[in-house]
């Protein structure tokens, strides 16, 4: 079966990705038809978390830059979209595109700083972004609505879908479309020259520089790409929740994104799917857990954060490749047993993160 699948897929990377994305789109379409409104909202949640996680996993897993501030970048995208749709009445697609541009520009500024920082200092700087940026909404309540946030009318499903078409399904479609576009663009990027440069910089900055790569420029570019994804995720978030408010983009969101990336598998776009599902389901599970243990409300409210911490530690210790790493090992084990003729270099994965070298910390 593996040989067949390999034969059928087009050789050209872009075509192959488009074909697979179209297939995924059909599957998602069928799923959204089968789901009730609440689970369509969950699907939309998975989609916008995926959009953000995919960008972050490229930045951290492939380029070796950590960001604890992606929640704040999502806020930039969300507020851009909310202002453009809610206040200025832009069409949704244009507003989402603009929110990507605005956030990418923010990413340029942050990235320029980030490229000068390493290890814990980079983590600290991006952490400051996560803590500080949502505060702007409170500082300028007239522009950003303060704690109240900005209301955005939900996107009305087009008339040709019928009167009774559920809004939640439409929201899920928009979010999934954004996620698929992100997936195709990122998959192409990381398989090409840019992806190789990202990885070269991650693995050894000096070697990359000796090979003629402009390390700082590549790091800034990685940040821009990653920020653009976060911006789109933020914009999609507004589409799904009809609201941009500072409470949504506090530090726990940034930490959740990092957890999602690590849990799914650093540097793996497929892993980002697992991470996104985990981020959507985890609050439910932690709520069930809190009820099962009859914990107090205060403990329950903080339980997800504690779980994020434990998951981070557990995954790093037990399965550094995350869920996707486990699957990959499993698949390879099965494949190796079934087809002994396979060349060993098939097991070398260009995306598997390698540990950063000591000198960089």
């Amino acid at each position: 079966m593996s040989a067949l699948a390999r034969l059928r897929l087009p050789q050209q990377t872009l075509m192959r990705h488009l074909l697979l994305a179209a297939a995924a789109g059909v599957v998602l379409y069928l799923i959204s038809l089968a789901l009730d409104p609440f689970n369509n909202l969950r699907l939309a949640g998975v989609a916008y978390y995926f959009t953000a996680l995919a960008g972050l996993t490229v930045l951290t897993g492939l380029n070796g830059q950590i960001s604890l501030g992606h929640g704040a970048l999502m806020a930039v995208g969300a507020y851009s979209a909310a202002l453009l749709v809610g206040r200025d009445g832009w069409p949704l697609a244009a507003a989402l595109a603009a929110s990507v541009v605005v956030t990418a520009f923010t990413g340029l500024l942050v990235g320029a700083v980030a490229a000068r920082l390493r290890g814990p200092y980079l983590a600290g700087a991006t952490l400051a972004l996560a803590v500080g940026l949502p505060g702007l909404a409170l500082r300028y309540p007239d522009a950003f609505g303060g704690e109240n946030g900005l209301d955005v009318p939900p996107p009305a499903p087009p008339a040709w879908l019928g009167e009774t078409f559920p809004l939640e399904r439409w929201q899920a479609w928009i979010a999934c479309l954004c996620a698929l576009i992100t997936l195709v663009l990122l998959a192409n990027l990381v398989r090409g020259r840019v992806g190789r440069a990202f990885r070269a910089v991650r693995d050894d900055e000096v070697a990359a520089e000796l090979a003629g790569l402009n390390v700082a420029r590549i790091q800034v570019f990685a940040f821009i790409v990653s920020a653009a994804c976060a911006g789109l995720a933020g914009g999609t978030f507004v589409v799904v929740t009809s609201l941009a408010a500072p409470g949504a983009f506090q530090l726990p969101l940034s930490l959740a994104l990092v957890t999602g990336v690590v849990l799914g598998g650093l540097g793996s776009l497929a892993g980002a799917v697992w991470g996104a599902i985990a981020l959507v389901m985890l609050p439910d599970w932690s709520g069930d857990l809190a009820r099962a243990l009859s914990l107090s409300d205060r403990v329950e409210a903080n339980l997800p954060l504690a779980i994020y911490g434990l998951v981070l530690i557990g995954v790093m210790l037990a399965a550094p490749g995350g869920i996707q790493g486990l699957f990959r090992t499993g698949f390879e084990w099965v494949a190796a047993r079934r087809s002994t003729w396979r060349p060993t270099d098939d097991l070398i994965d260009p995306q598997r993160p390698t540990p950063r070298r000591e000198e960089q910390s």
Partner: protein
Amino acid sequence: MTSIGASRQRLSGACVLAAVCAFVIAGCGGGGSGTSAPGVTKDSVKIGSHQPLTGPAAPGYSEIAPASNAFFKYLNSQGGVNGRTINYVYKDDGYNPTNTVSVVKRLVLQQKVFAIFNGLGTPTHTKVVDFLNTSKVPDLFVASGCQCWDQPDDHPMTFGWQPDYVVEGKILGDYIKKHFAGKKVAYFYQNDDFGKDGVKGLDMYVKSQVVSRQSYEPGDTNVGPQISAIKSSGAEVIAAFTIPAYTALAELTSVKLNYKPQLVVSNVGSDPITVGGLLKAFSKGKAGAALIEGLVTNGYLPSVGDTSNPWIDLFKRIHDRYDAKAPFDGNVLFGMAAAYTFAQALDKAGKNPTRQGLVDAVEKGNLRGPGLVPFRFSDKSHAGFTGAQIGTIKGGKIVYEGTPVTTDDGAGPLKPYTEKQPTPTEQGIVKAGD
């Protein structure tokens, strides 16, 4: 290179497929309710709410939902409403509007509640009003005095409960004008709809006396600059539209500045037990309820300390039996009184309640309970209590004076209200003349 890429793609494709399948399976859990109205079975009615059980608004307000639930439990032990028990599911939103959206969507779409009851907060609840109305879910007795709940044309399913803040502002303003005539007045208010609506009402009576207008952002715990500014303006009276934590902070800060103005505080931020507890907590035990003696406020429910009132008597017994962990204070009273109003509306919605039937029952009016004044509910108005009564904190209790007054949220006058308060039956339901 190609073969590596292809094998990876296959893996990713397989994983995505597996993931989405997991989703479909997860999704199959929900859905499917046979009866006519969601959340209603032959022996129970499920209702939901979003409440600040944690977060900045939790001190005090986190007692409201457990108190409502205590009332429903008592009611259920008495046979429920029309033979149905009330199953009250209240979820924590941390007073965070984003959480409110997800909590309410979960309650409506997943848990399939019949109605949302007493959702707490202006910044939070405004984010779900559109959703609830387009989903045709009754949104009864929002725990906030925003005027915005009273829009029967745009939001036919939404009803307020407590008097709106403009009404409160008018009543407090009228009192200041009469009792502190000629004195300099300063405003201290929360910088959102709550505070601004209150100021609107105050301004109708005391605008000419105001020497300073200071606001605070909820979450910013340093109110030193504002209170200093008020002190240096020479104000002798502070009219405050604050939540309990900020009433306490303002009081402590003015003590530190050796400044002793007369406080006139909206009902929202004046419950003596809550504020006294916060004063104690914030000052690490050095201060307490003694600081707010003489504070002027208004109320629309009987005073918690008035044990001779039959409503307080009933609620106190229910509290001792089902909710004894919480102090018996204004928040508990609020929760029980709102729950009572809901039970009454559900009762009037008939033997086979529908969502529209519940809304119609509230619009028909005739709801009357522990309030000192009647509701304004009709098909033209979805506003709650029509007025309030002035009271002063004496001995840690609100002691009412004069008669309750009713008014509108426009330029209408204040009218004394003298009709007698109805008394509850032992079952906790008043069968008022329909």
